[in-house]
């Protein structure tokens, strides 16, 4: 099995007529994802390589039965698109867009929660369930089907770790990029819960970075609720306080949100934390084979 996306995913892409949206949307289709529709206001009736384009997400849901929405809309309009997706009847919204103002996400976050729609991202690489479906920008060639679930704030760091797992002969149930923004729709805890329930996930790799306290809260949650082994990696030990390190959410505020504090919180709850991506991948393989 896998989590969030699989063979039953019917994908509608907001922004499919744009450069990035069409490149990645069609790539997802080439992988085997059932891409049923695109949405661009004012371009309803057009087609992108045989995929019908609609004026609204709700219309695409009514016409095609789309159940998962991917948002590839420029940042200043993206929150409105996510809101539209939440109201459209899809069960999952995956927002790739980077640079959405956080005040916009405050309202959108609570709207998704209230309507019971799962929101992943924004500012994330999406989700890959190897062998089943790919929604987002994750390069699928580094991941084989397998027993390790991955949840991560970072894209390239995940590819790095995925590639090391593949070279060690291991694969993944799903890889979920939750995004590097201060407010994301789903946190580590939400995804850990899904991996815990997934019968085909035997071990979870969690990739965190400086900023906020999602890793610390995950540590508490793992101790209380997660029976499967978790291996972690945290980036940003050398990051200075008060500086935003690429991702909008990756910032140490005063003395809180440091990599050291996150590592200690995880280790205190028995989670093994690798010193480098290579060591984290090795720890995951070792733990999986010992279990």
């Amino acid at each position, binding site marked *: 099995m896998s989590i969030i996306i699989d063979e039953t995913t019917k994908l509608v892409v907001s922004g499919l007529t744009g450069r990035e949206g069409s490149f990645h949307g069609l790539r997802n289709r080439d992988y085997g994802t059932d891409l049923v529709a695109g949405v661009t206001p004012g371009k309803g009736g057009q087609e992108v390589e045989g995929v019908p384009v609609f004026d609204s997400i709700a219309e695409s849901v009514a016409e095609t039965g789309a159940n998962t929405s991917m948002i590839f809309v420029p940042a200043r309009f993206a929150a409105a698109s996510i809101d539209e997706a939440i109201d459209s009847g899809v069960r999952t919204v995956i927002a790739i867009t980077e640079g959405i103002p956080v005040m916009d996400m405050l309202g959108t976050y609570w709207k998704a929660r209230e309507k019971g729609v799962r929101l992943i991202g924004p500012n994330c690489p999406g989700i890959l369930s190897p062998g089943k479906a790919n929604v987002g920008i994750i390069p699928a060639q580094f991941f084989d089907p397998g027993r390790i679930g991955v949840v991560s704030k970072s894209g390239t760091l995940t590819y790095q770790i995925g590639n090391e797992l593949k070279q060690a002969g291991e694969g993944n149930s799903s890889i979920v990029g939750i995004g590097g923004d201060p407010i994301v729709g789903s946190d580590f805890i939400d995804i850990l819960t899904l991996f815990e329930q997934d019968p085909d996930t035997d071990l979870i790799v969690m990739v965190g970075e400086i900023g906020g306290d999602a890793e610390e809260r995950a540590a508490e949650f793992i101790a209380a609720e997660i029976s499967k082994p978790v291996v972690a990696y945290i980036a940003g*030990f050398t990051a200075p306080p008060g500086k935003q*390190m*690429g991702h909008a959410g990756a910032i140490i505020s005063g003395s809180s949100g440091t990599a050291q504090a996150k590592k200690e919180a995880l280790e205190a709850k028995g989670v093994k934390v690798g010193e480098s991506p290579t060591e984290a991948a090795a720890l995951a393989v070792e733990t999986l084979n010992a279990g």
Partner: protein
Amino acid sequence: MDLLEYQGKELFSRHGLPVPAGSHAATPEEAVKAAEALGYPVAIKAQVLIGGRGKAGGIKIASDATEAQEHADAIIGMDITGPHGEGPFRVGELWVEVGTEIAAEFYASVILDRSEKKLLVMLSRMGGMDVEAIAESDPEALVKRHVDPIDGLTADAAAEIVAQAGIPGEYADQTATILLKLVDVAMAEDATLIEVNPLAVDSAGKVIALDSKVTIDGNALFRHPELEELAGDADGDPQEAMAREKGLTYVKLDGDIGILGNGAGLCMSTLDVVAQAGGSPANFLDAGGGSKAEAIIDALEVITSDPKVKAILFNIFGGITRCDEVARGIIEATGKIGLDLPLVVRLDGTNSEEGLALLADSGLGNLHYETTMLGAANKVVELASGSDS
């Protein structure tokens, strides 16, 4: 993006929050002129982006022109280090404001609480010390309340916060109004942090914002062009200013190993791995998906403009970006800018073999290549320390 005190106060003013009258000064002469116009006593305040300015000697009261001159001379050009080791920041500008006789000091703030996904209002009757000290010395004196994401902060909720914080009755209405306005400012101006410490009562019984600390969401600057113009001003560091101009995500650090990676997470991880190998990174630079020669030239120009840099590490994991394209970009860029520093390139992922072959054939003597992060980190540390001798 953090605002300087005076920029924050100008923002407050625009939203009708009471602040002392003041003027900006870039030189001691301007400071004296401003002081003469405002009337004595005046406070002469260093404008740097950190707390603890008072303790560091960056805020002084002047009661005449001679003192104003003396203090302004002393403060301009001084280096101030923050309470958490931030900086040091060199003082390049001053804010001169009417001296306020303080009858009481409170603390007020509105911050984005990432954990709860809501705005958080905090108020204490104990102002003038930092919020961690308030929380430590008397946790009950710091009242915290989340703002409802749908209804916002209601007048009733603001009044309750003020009562619970024990703000004396005669200042309660003014303080409640200020809390409501601070929440408005946060939402209208995309401020993820607004701290007023102290929120002071002056000798006339008026509650005013005597200091300001404001952080604006960099992702929202497109709808605040007047704030975006300030962005460059606060950048004291020449490399950071240059990177901003070129549109690169760059953070200056203390070391001598220049770093370029693709992706923020991988780039942070690269810094950590270099530090573990015994090296000291000079910067963070996320090249993103940029594989084109122009982007690499821009990145190399910023990195090499830091005179401390002795060696450079490119850490690239090609996903959708192809390593052979990156290799071509690197070869073209190093040729164009005549780079003579040792350059370690780690290429892994999509088309890495083709990329490595291109590097091997390039004939560039200063170019070293590796396939693993750890190998590349060890190599660049060795090269950086070797160039000492």
